[in-house]
């Protein structure tokens, strides 16, 4: 095993981990605020990829430029999903919240199938193949940009929640729904915004992923489970934990290819999940709720 290869894999793991982290941040936000697990999360990410794909193919817009549009579109999708369905099932037992969300994931998946067909599509972007070297390792420019933007998006989201009036309302509603209603916060609307933001985050992750891997309608399940593993790793509802959890999973998966065939990637992530559940069920950085 060469050290140079390990270093290369480490870099790749960190860079991909940033995107894992970003989508997990969205899932964690939704859980932290509403106590709901968004089982349509991966499919929303795929939608982000396709929107960004469309903007590229139809308008020639580079994915990094269309990122705000993809995020905005998925924000609207999340907002509408929350206001039409999720707000009504918040008081249901957890087991009964699962099905409507899984169903929405399936609807999105089939819409993708309807619009874009089953074949994987991999657009070529301007920066798609550009690289530079860092010591002994080669770094893809698009992976580096994706990583940087993922971090920036997360930091922006955390600051928004911490400082803005809307962000404070979201945190208040997450903390104590009754208290929030009694001070006059329109909790349903705040929930819509929170779900929209969580969705926008995974939509952005999708747009960032587009230059890195071919998009197909069936990617959603894997994305959801990956995000889920990361959220458990970082602590449910803990946003910065989700980001760090993403990096850990990215690096672990990447380094594991030194010893295991790449097709066993999921074994690694789920192995990690089981270990965390057994020994640190609150996640590495503690959760809320």
């Amino acid at each position, binding site marked *: 095993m060469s050290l140079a290869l390990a270093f290369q894999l480490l870099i790749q793991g960190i860079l991909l981990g940033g995107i894992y982290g970003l989508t997990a941040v969205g899932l964690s936000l939704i859980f932290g605020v509403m106590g709901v697990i968004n089982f349509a999360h991966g499919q929303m990410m795929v939608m982000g990829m396709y929107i960004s794909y469309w903007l590229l193919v139809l308008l020639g817009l580079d994915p990094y430029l269309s990122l705000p549009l993809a995020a905005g579109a998925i924000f609207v999708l999340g907002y509408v999903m929350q206001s039409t369905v999720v707000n009504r099932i918040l008081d249901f037992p957890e087991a009964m919240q699962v099905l409507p969300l899984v169903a929405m994931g399936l609807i999105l998946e089939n819409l993708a199938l309807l619009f874009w067909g089953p074949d994987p599509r991999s657009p070529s972007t301007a920066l798609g193949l550009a690289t530079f070297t860092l010591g002994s390792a080669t770094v893809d420019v698009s992976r580096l940009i994706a990583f940087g933007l993922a971090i920036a998006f997360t930091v922006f989201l955390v600051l928004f929640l911490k400082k803005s009036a809307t962000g404070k309302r979201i945190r208040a509603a997450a903390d104590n729904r009754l208290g929030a209603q009694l*001070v*006059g916060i*329109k909790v349903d609307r705040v929930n819509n915004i929170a779900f929209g933001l969580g969705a926008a985050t995974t939509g952005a992750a999708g747009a960032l992923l587009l230059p890195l891997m071919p998009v197909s309608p069936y990617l959603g399940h894997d994305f959801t489970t990956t995000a889920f593993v990361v959220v458990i790793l970082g602590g449910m509802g803990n946003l910065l934990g989700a980001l760090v959890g993403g990096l850990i999973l990215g690096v672990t998966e990447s380094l594991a290819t030194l010893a295991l065939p790449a097709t066993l990637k999921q074994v690694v992530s789920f192995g990690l999940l089981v270990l965390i559940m057994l020994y640190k069920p609150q996640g590495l950085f503690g959760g809320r709720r």
Partner: protein
Amino acid sequence: MLELKGIDVYYGDLQALRGVSLTVGAGEVVSVIGSNGMGKSTTLKAISGLLHPRAGSIQFQGRDITRLTPSAIVELGISHVPEGRQVFPSLTVLENLEMGAQFPEPIRRAGQTLEQVFAYFPRLKERLKQKAGTLSGGEQQMLAIGRGLMSLPSLMMLDEPSLGLSPLLVETIFEIIEQINQQGTSLLVIEQNVFHALGISHRGYVLEDGGVALSGPSRELLADPHVRKAYLGL
């Protein structure tokens, strides 16, 4: 300014209020007393729009508010300081207070109102940056009242403000409640502490099994044989 006319409130099939009628006049302090489970908190929840009555109506300052949302009711000037405080534990004391002001006028005057709240509860000013979840029970009660004041209510409803507080703090809280009333805010106060409640209120209602069993000037209730026997143990 507030008038409940024969409201029936249900939790599912369970009827919690039976034809409750009650009024609060401008500047008045009205207390609602009754043992556990008699419908005191339910009455407040109906007024603040958390529950909607199946029959009867609720008027506030000449408007029908029976079907309004909690948010709209706060905006009209009713503030509900609930049972169990319901502060935001992971927000700081200052953020909790800020969240009390949700509408343009209260937001515009938030700075001023904050000073007023600190004058009532100097302790909160010392704890501004502390998370509300780490406050003591008494401090959380102060915070809940302070947060309720931030919306500039003309009617404030307090659900068992003295519950779980030390006797000394109970005195303080009741003094401050009286000061709040002297500033012109009408009050509807629920209390298990019947002596105190009737002591600071002008009028009182006794709730039994979801209905008004007795009502009148507090002084008369204090002298009423049934009240003395059932609630004061005399």
